[in-house]
């Protein structure tokens, strides 16, 4: 007979939350970082003279596309390490599970999207090493935009984590609201992250091909990314609504 009491339920939710955070969180970032490295290696074999520039772009790009994974890691460690503040009620458990899902799932799209932009930037620099500065700038812009859904996810996870400390009474609807808030933010951020990644990818390629059009490409990148990102803002709005329900 399995012993089901509130305390064990809370612990189970915390462990599941940490697992979701890191398990899902590792997917996107690692694919993105690997894609950047692939393009950098290909570029070096094509254009050995640009190795230094490619190395720098690769490291910077990987550092950004890795940050969604780092957010997931922080949240997972918080969840496992935060066990000592336990208050026994089921709402608390669902908030923690929700925070794990929010940060983990939201970093899938962002990590991969930032990787797409970074990889194409490496390709462009290998093709035309003279415009490395402009391409790096566009890459940074694209990656910063692509990782912002993951930042929203991280923010949502932190809010849920803090909320869990202030809960005294719980009910099934508020538990569902908190878990749902986490799911809304997490799943809602997959698409925007990837979508902005596509924009950033083509922008990096375009700046490499015609550096003169750089500023208009950057503007279009910003606008297109804002439109693609608005979906993750909708998710964040729904997150806030659900969060306030609990």
């Amino acid at each position, binding site marked *: 007979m399995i012993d089901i009491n509130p305390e064990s339920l809370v612990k189970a939710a915390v462990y599941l939350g940490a697992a979701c955070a890191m398990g899902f969180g590792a997917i996107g970032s690692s694919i993105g970082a690997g894609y950047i490295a692939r393009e950098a290696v290909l570029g070096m074999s094509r254009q050995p003279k640009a190795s230094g520039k490619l190395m720098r772009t690769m*490291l*910077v790009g990987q*550092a*950004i596309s890795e*940050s969604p994974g*780092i*957010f997931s*890691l*922080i949240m997972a*460690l*918080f969840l*496992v*390490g*935060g*066990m*000592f503040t336990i208050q026994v009620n089921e709402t608390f458990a669902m908030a923690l599970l929700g925070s794990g899902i929010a940060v983990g799932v939201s970093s899938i799209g962002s990590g991969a999207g930032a990787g797409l932009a970074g990889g194409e930037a490496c390709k462009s620099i290998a093709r035309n090493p003279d415009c490395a*500065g*402009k391409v*790096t*700038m566009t890459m*940074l*812009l694209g990656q*910063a*935009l692509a*990782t*912002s859904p993951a*930042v*929203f996810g*991280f*923010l949502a996870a932190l809010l849920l984590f803090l909320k869990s400390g202030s809960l005294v009474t719980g009910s099934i609807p508020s538990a569902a609201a908190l878990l749902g808030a986490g799911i809304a933010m997490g799943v809602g951020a997959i698409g925007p992250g990837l979508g902005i990644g596509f924009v950033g990818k083509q922008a990096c390629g375009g700046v490499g091909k015609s550096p003169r059009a750089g*500023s208009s490409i*950057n*503007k279009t990148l*910003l*606008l297109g*990314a*804002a*439109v693609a*990102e*608005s979906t993750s*803002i909708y998710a964040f709005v729904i997150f806030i609504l659900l969060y306030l329900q609990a």
Partner: protein
Amino acid sequence: MELDFAPETFWLLPDLGDFGSVNIKTIIFSWVVIAVLILLSALVYTRLKKIPTRLQLLLETIVDGFDNLTRSTLGERGRAYLPYIGSLFLFIWFSNLIGIIPGCEEPTRDVNTTLGLGFCIVIPIAHISGIRVKGWRYLKEFFEPGLVIRGVWLPNIFMCPLNVVGEFGKAISLPFRLFGNIFGGAIIIVVLSQLARYAVLPPFLMFFFGIFVGTIQAFVFAMLALTYTAVAVAE
């Protein structure tokens, strides 16, 4: 396993509750970083030599690198932004590096520092530069792409919320990226130190997170600040 990462607070004005408190370690180590930077530059600047010493060479490399970066990104206007971008990089870099010294705490580990840098420095400077360069035309950009009816440009009101949201996303993600990376590094070092009992792993991790990640994140922050400014002033 207990983790306590709440910053040490000090109540300046106890009547105001949380608003009257400061995170004392953040303040102290921010001033330590500022003092170190001022001392270093004063030390080098007062005795510049034709044949540079090692310290002079290091600082010259940094200044020269950022001079090239700002000028290649912003053109001739770039020189004016060199002190801003350079000191932003140096402050964040030294703030990240100070965590290597035992007992010291990175000011960037506190979300207040990074949010302050983002919201009070980077974003206002980008917008103010945009307004200074373009005047009121800068505000027009928030209504782009406009509707062109018979050759007359009309503001597109529906694009304004999207553009504002994009600005908001940029402003939020910049501070949290720095905070997340530095804070995550600190947590990982503490957790793994407890597992590995202070043997081999912690020094290696401190090297990795302090020097490698710290340098890259400082560079990324400064570059993004430069990029946001460049996008705001681009014609």
